[in-house]
């Protein structure tokens, strides 16, 4: 049977059309809701949401730059930065926690008291003290998220604390400064405050070289704290500070500080300085101060004035040691020679109204230059000194460096006082011939002797050898050009006179260094009493150089007011021990030549 196809009507009845229309409308509404939301998120609130998301995922981290160290030319570290850690706690999160037990799947419950006790055992506090810190922080602010438990613990303590696995502790890095050699060169190196700002000494003076810059780094982390690879952005590079290189020798510095301190305490001195300088280059090998300061323990030095370097900052009237300068000036100007004799009374009253006398009564004596310096006669020196005009002596004084800071590199250095010669009154005009009426620092006195030792060429006094930056370049190297102050002949003649002083002085038995030719001069200067006059205390000093035939080292020692021995016999043993050590350390071989025998009357 054939089947008849039933003709169907097309799908366009009205009810069908309505169904289609309704579906389209519903779809359209849903789509528009999504599109609207999309536009809202992507366009309207895009920036705010991005900022939120970055804040949630990315971490800003400070990358610390390391402060530069202070080192010697030999590589010994005098000051360096080390990383220490502060242990902080989040008080609002403090509570019991569980800790994994070794070799077992169980976890042990640890109470706050037990955790505090364990923590305190490492940091050196009692568990109760730690709990007190936490409760105090919560009492001040119930939502407190931060309090310090211990500051500046080292790496071993940090690792032990991390092993305790206490979840409410947060260690933070905290760079700190350490001085491995203690008080050796402590007065020179200076110290920093607890926050790391330089406060004294080379730390402060060379802060531009030493200071570092912190950098910042941003990275993004996943939920378990691992850095998402490729997401680290160094927004700012950290710059390490540079190292300051000093010319000091740390072993010699230790020896000189020791010797100075022992003798200063023995003689009851108020303070003292000792300087060792290389005669040929002007480099300072040791600058010792008494009392010294240990920058690791600043509180151990009670008087703040003792924490600086008096060798650089305290100027004093040098006294008889400057007679060498006057003698050299007179010889260089040709006003006298080694045979010239003058009549030296006990008291000399020159025509301009000054009044000069010697330290001990004696009859009028004929004296050559050597006699004047051996006896340290003020009147004899005045007779020689007045052969030059005031202006000539003033010019020699300034060329020798008196009145100007040496510029060695120590901050706040004193330049001493030298009044212009037009302002010299009658007494000052004569007093400056024997080292009174003007002030110098210990370094300026050493520099005078360095000039005489170095054939008349004054080398700039050097404490620093430069700043070695993190990338290896060295900047700030000092001048090495010398200036000629005396002729070589005058310098050598003065050196021989000083050798005569060394061999014939009343302290020659004390400062004798067998086998070597040494030149030295003592000095006893009155100290000002602060009211325009002089006190009864003396500032005694010894300055000299060795080996005298080809000098290599200058040593200058000063003791202020050694009450138990108020003469220049007090610093003489220091000079002897320091100079012996210097000659031995640097293997200066004695020449074996005899000392000169200059004309003397006495």
């Amino acid at each position, binding site marked *: 049977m*054939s*089947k008849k*196809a039933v003709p169907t009507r097309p799908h366009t009845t009205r009810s069908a059309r309505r169904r289609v229309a309704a579906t389209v409308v519903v779809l359209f509404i849903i789509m528009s809701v999504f599109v609207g939301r999309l536009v809202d998120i992507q366009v309207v609130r895009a920036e705010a949401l991005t900022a939120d998301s970055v804040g949630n995922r990315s971490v800003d981290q400070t990358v610390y730059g390391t402060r530069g160290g202070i080192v010697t030319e030999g590589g*010994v*570290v005098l000051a*360096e930065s*080390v*990383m220490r850690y502060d242990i902080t706690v989040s008080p609002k999160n403090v509570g019991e926690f569980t800790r994994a037990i070794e070799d077992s799947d169980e976890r042990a419950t640890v109470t706050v008291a037990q955790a505090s006790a364990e923590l305190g055992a490492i940091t050196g506090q009692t568990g109760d003290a730690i709990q007190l810190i936490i409760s105090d922080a919560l009492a001040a602010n119930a939502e407190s998220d931060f309090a310090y438990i211990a500051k500046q613990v*080292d*790496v*071993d303590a940090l690792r032990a604390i991390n092993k305790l696995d206490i979840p409410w502790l947060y260690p933070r890095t905290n760079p700190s400064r*350490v*001085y*491995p*050699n*203690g*008080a*050796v060169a402590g007065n020179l190196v200076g110290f920093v405050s607890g926050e790391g700002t330089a406060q004294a000494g080379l730390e402060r003076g060379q802060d531009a070289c030493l200071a570092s810059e912190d950098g910042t780094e941003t990275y993004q982390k996943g939920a378990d704290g*691992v*850095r*998402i*690879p490729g997401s680290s952005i160094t927004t700012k590079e950290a710059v390490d500070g540079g190292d300051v290189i000093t010319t000091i020798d*740390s*072993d010699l510095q*230790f020896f000189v*500080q*020791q010797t100075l*301190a*022992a003798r200063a*305490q*023995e*003689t*009851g001195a108020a303070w003292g300085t000792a300087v060792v300088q290389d005669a040929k280059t002007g480099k300072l090998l040791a600058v010792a101060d008494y009392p*010294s300061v*240990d920058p*690791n*323990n600043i509180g*151990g030095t009670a008087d703040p004035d003792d924490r600086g370097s008096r060798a650089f900052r305290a100027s004093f009237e040098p006294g008889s040691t400057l007679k060498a300068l006057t003698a050299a000036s007179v010889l260089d100007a040709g006003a006298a020679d080694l045979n010239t004799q003058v009549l030296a009374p006990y008291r000399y009253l020159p025509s301009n109204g000054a009044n000069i006398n010697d330290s001990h009564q004696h009859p009028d004596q004929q004296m050559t230059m050597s006699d004047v310096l051996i006896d340290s006669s003020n009147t004899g020196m005045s007779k020689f000194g007045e052969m030059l005009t005031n202006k000539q002596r003033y010019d020699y004084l300034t060329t020798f460096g008196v009145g100007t800071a040496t510029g060695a590199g120590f901050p706040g250095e004193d330049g001493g006082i030298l009044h212009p010669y037009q302002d010299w009154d009658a007494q000052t005009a004569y007093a400056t011939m024997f080292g009174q009426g003007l002030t110098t620092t210990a370094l300026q006195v050493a520099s005078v002797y360095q000039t005489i030792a170095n054939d008349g060429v004054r080398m700039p006094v050097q404490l620093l050898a430069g700043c070695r930056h993190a990338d290896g370049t060295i900047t700030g190297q000092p001048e090495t050009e010398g200036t000629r102050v005396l002729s070589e002949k005058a310098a050598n003649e003065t050196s021989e006179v000083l050798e005569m002083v060394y061999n014939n002085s009343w302290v020659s038995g004390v400062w004798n260094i*067998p*086998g070597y030719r040494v030149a030295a001069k003592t000095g006893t200067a009155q100290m000002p009493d602060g009211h325009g006059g002089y006190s*009864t205390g003396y500032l005694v000093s010894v300055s000299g150089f060795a080996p005298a035939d080809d000098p290599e080292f200058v040593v200058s020692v000063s003791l202020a007011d050694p*009450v*138990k*021995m*108020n003469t220049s016999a007090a610093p003489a043993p220091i000079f002897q*021990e320091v100079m*012996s*050590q210097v*000659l*031995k350390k640097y293997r200066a*071989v*004695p020449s*074996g030549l005899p000392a000169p025998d200059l004309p003397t009357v006495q």
Partner: protein
Amino acid sequence: MSDNLARVPQAGAPQRSAEHAEEHRRFQIVSPSAGRRSRPRIVYALTAIAGVGAIIVAQLLLSVGTSQGAYEISALQASQAELSRTEASVNEDLVQVSSPQSLAANAAALGLVSNSNPVYLRLSDGAVLGAPSSASGSQASSASLVPNSLLGDNIVLSQLPAGAAGTDVSGAAAAVAVTSAPVIPAGLPSPTTR
């Protein structure tokens, strides 16, 4: 009536046309026979899907590998940080032990005595320059005049065994104990007048 028997067409044309017309009016929809397929081959679909799948899997593996690498890097960086901390800490200890106070104390504990009298031996001719004399005194006590507060109380690293001190050590105290209080040399008597 129609049947499948083949018939010899009659000669009558109008009969044929009438039959034709009937046949024409009766159309049946013939279902298409299983002849030419209009669906594409399944191989192509499988290849496409497999390709997409392979790409996705490869991408997943790469990203797993990268994150695994990130974990390794993180672990290595952590261990590098730990090692540098150890190095810095050990370096600190080394520098402290090299400090002059530590060396002087340890030298004194070993029985060494300082000698401030240098004597030179010239190797070319064996001449002795200087006056040799035995060493006397020890500077152990004055080491604490230049203190180092970093060293603490344990600055002496090794002691001589008892009874092993050399017989030539003269003037040095037999028990070289490093005291923490400075031993100030006895002061000179103060002069009564000046």
